[in-house]
């Protein structure tokens, strides 16, 4: 655990602990031998099933035992069960994986078993509602993935899984609620590329569906991202999102205004590499995209500003010196 000082224990205390561990180890070895033996004999009975449960609690990474468990279910249990019973058993197994995931959130085999259980869910509870059981499991999946993202909001596997769950749910969640979810994650810690990325996907979808007013929405996003920029100008994901927002628009005024904001931030934080780099990018954007509306003098000034910034960048970010030299050499 982080931050917990190592406490000193007496020699007796440590010796006692070692003995306890030895006893546990012996138990585990005995149990493993028994279960593997049953597997060899293709014993697919109830007792074997319970033994796999015990063993998996001790070591959930033992994927052979997961395989064995599935064989027991497919061969010994499901054929003689009603849909309701099957559903119950799957529900219990899902609970088992939830418990184990809390302690072992990255073990592939537990996730694997979870997916397998979800695929096995029979139609039910009734003929008129064949997706009822599935729907409630998918809802729970969403809940589980949200818990994972609470523990580690930058886990891109979890974000992927989240998209997978959202796609597969029989009754979909609204995109606006997903937008709200990304906002919560960003507010908790905006140094989170995955959250911004998700937000960009959801917004795009909402715009094309006509559910949100695009220009107004872009303005709100620019405001949000600016707050993040000023709070931590060193955060990369924020600048990348900003760049995406600018690329969506067609208004020179907006680009001018944003350049002004970033200039002010640079005044306050003169060593900010991202400010400088973004200014170069946006000024060049003006030169490329809005060339006709610029006077000769303005064009010249933008070019010289960029040269100045690139020179400074070489000093502030010497690791990428060559890149800045390159950029200043090339035309817009």
């Amino acid at each position, binding site marked *: 655990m982080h931050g*917990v000082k190592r406490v000193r224990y007496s020699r007796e205390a440590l010796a*006692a602990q070692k003995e306890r561990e030895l006893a546990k180890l012996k138990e585990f070895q005995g149990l493993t031998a028994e279960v593997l033996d049953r597997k060899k004999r293709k014993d697919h009975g109830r007792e074997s099933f319970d033994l796999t449960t015990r063993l998996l609690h001790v070591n959930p990474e033992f994927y052979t035992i997961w395989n064995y468990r599935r064989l027991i279910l497919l061969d010994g249990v499901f054929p003689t069960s009603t849909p309701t019973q099957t559903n119950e058993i799957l529900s219990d197994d899902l609970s088992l994986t939830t418990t184990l995931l809390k302690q072992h959130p990255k073990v592939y085999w537990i996730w694997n078993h979870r997916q397998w259980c979800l695929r096995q869910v029979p139609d039910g509870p009734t003929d008129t509602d064949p997706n009822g059981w599935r729907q409630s499991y998918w809802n729970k999946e969403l809940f589980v993935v949200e818990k994972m993202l609470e523990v580690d909001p930058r886990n891109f596997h979890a974000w992927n899984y989240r998209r997978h769950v959202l796609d597969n749910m029989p009754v979909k969640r609204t995109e606006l609620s997903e937008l709200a979810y990304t906002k919560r994650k960003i507010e908790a810690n905006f140094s989170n590329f995955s959250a911004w990325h998700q937000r960009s996907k959801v917004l795009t979808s909402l715009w094309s569906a006509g559910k949100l007013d695009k220009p107004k929405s872009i303005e709100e996003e620019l405001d949000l991202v600016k707050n993040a920029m000023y709070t931590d100008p060193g955060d990369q994901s924020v600048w990348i999102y900003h760049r995406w927002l600018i690329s969506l628009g067609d208004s020179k005024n907006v680009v001018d205004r944003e350049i002004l904001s970033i200039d002010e931030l640079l005044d306050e934080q003169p060593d900010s590499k991202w400010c400088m780099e973004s200014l170069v990018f946006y000024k060049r954007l003006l030169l490329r995209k809005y060339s006709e509306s610029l006077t000769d003098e303005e064009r010249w000034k933008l070019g010289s500003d960029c040269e100045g910034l690139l020179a400074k960048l070489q000093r502030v970010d010497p690791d990428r010196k060559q890149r800045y030299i390159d950029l200043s050499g090339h035309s817009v």
Partner: protein
Amino acid sequence: MDFDVVVLGTGLSESVAAAALSKAGYKVAHVDTNQYYGGDEASLTVEELAEWADARASDDPSSDYLANQRARYTSITRSQTIPPQSRQYSVSLAPSIVPSIGPHIDSLIASGVSRYGQFKLLEKVAVYDRPGYVQSVPGSKEDVFKSKALSLLDKRRLMRFLMFAAGDFEGKKELEGKEQTPFVQYLQDVFSLKDQATSAIAYALAFCTSAEEPTLPAMQRIRQYLRSAGRYGASPFLVGHYGGLGETAQGFCRTSAVKGGTYILGRRVVSVESSPDDSTKDEKSTSTSHSYSVKLIDFDERLTAKVLVSSPDYVPTSLGGNTSTSKQSAYAVARCVAIIDKPLVFTPSEVPEDTPSTDTDGPTDGPEDEPSEKPEPPSYDVDTALLVFPPGCLQNGSTTTAVHALVTGEGSMSAPRGRYIVNISLSLSESTLSSSAEELLRPYLEAALSLTAPPSSSSVTSPATSLFSLFYIHHTPAAVSSAPPSSSSSVIVTPPSRPHLPTIADEATEHAEAMFWTAVKQLKAAGVQRTVPKEEAEEGDASVEKAGTEDTSPDIDSFWPPLDAVEDETSDEW
């Protein structure tokens, strides 16, 4: 009855020292005239609190200890009726919030006392703004980002300061030469921070009590708190269950008792005497060692020991204790304890008017609406939180000193359901004053109560009134000088700890450690053997020849010895 050490008073420092001495293998007798543990840091029920107040307000001097206590606590007034369920309250005489990193936490863990007690994370710190409203205190990047009250430039400057304060700032150019500058001025000059931000930083992050406090100690405190955030939760501070420090002191006493310490509560100390021993056989010894003997009422035998550790109010004048004429206060704090029946509501001033934003379910989403996504008005009720009054924020309040009010409810196990204890502290700049504690603190109590009637509630509610209130002034003694400090034979008197919310626990623990080492030195010089566990004795250096009168047990190498049992490290909740 013969002991190695007699400790008088079960305040926090004395209890920590007693526990360490017992654990080190010394025979300890620990005495307190009161019927409860904790001394000046005790946690009391309301009835006990009323008795405590009355005993110190009355004129009848039934003991030296009480006479000293009467000088220590002045200007006492209280409401007469005791609320029902009075035994379910634990009111602290020394309210405290414990930083998650620091000497107190370290000792709690290393001594094993953390296993006896439980803690609640402080929920919020807010700055009083105007009746019914508070300003939240941005103490992390997340807070700063979300704040609607700070401008973009404010956010950058505040973040720059927080990053600086969390790092190794000693010797950096932003600080060099300015360590003694008044802190508020420093924030304005070096970080271009404005009033609201400097106020929040000085009084609600660094917990200064005035704008004049010097910069370096304030910066060190902020750094400790910034680094404490996240260890057990978002807040840097823990509040002990059952009244905080009193319960903790009791935990240390329990540890001491488990290791063989003898506990005597509720006996008046009749006399404390010291007599020099016969000169030792070792001619090299330059100091004479003493023996102390303590007579308790209704106790036939005197308690004797080579070393005496004592809280200042038990030290008789013959051994250097304070006479009433020489009483000099180092610090004085005006206190108010009030019990109320409604929670405080920390409604932020900057909550904007309700505008529909694109980030919530709109009415366009017909049948796909999910009931769980409808925005609910957030609840700003608090159970265990800190309210800060910067200087000048109240018309009838102090213009120079900040006031800190700790409110604790059921969550901290210090009050029954639906009840809350408000504990207000105001540092006084002069120890002699014309105003009474009540006059000084009533405006603050009323302002705090105005927060129980939130403006956002749908029905007009009136603010709570207090079911019980107590006001007093607490004088911390100046350091007591008994015999010259170089002598190895003086009474070890607990040095004063400033009774300030975030620092008192750490200070008291540091004092306890100093007292422990002094005691050990005196005990060694007096040739007292300690009982050591076999393991330690084996590791000790047995080859050194020592004279007969000297302690042959191995040197103590740390404040706390190793713990006896490995705990399952699955419990990570406080």
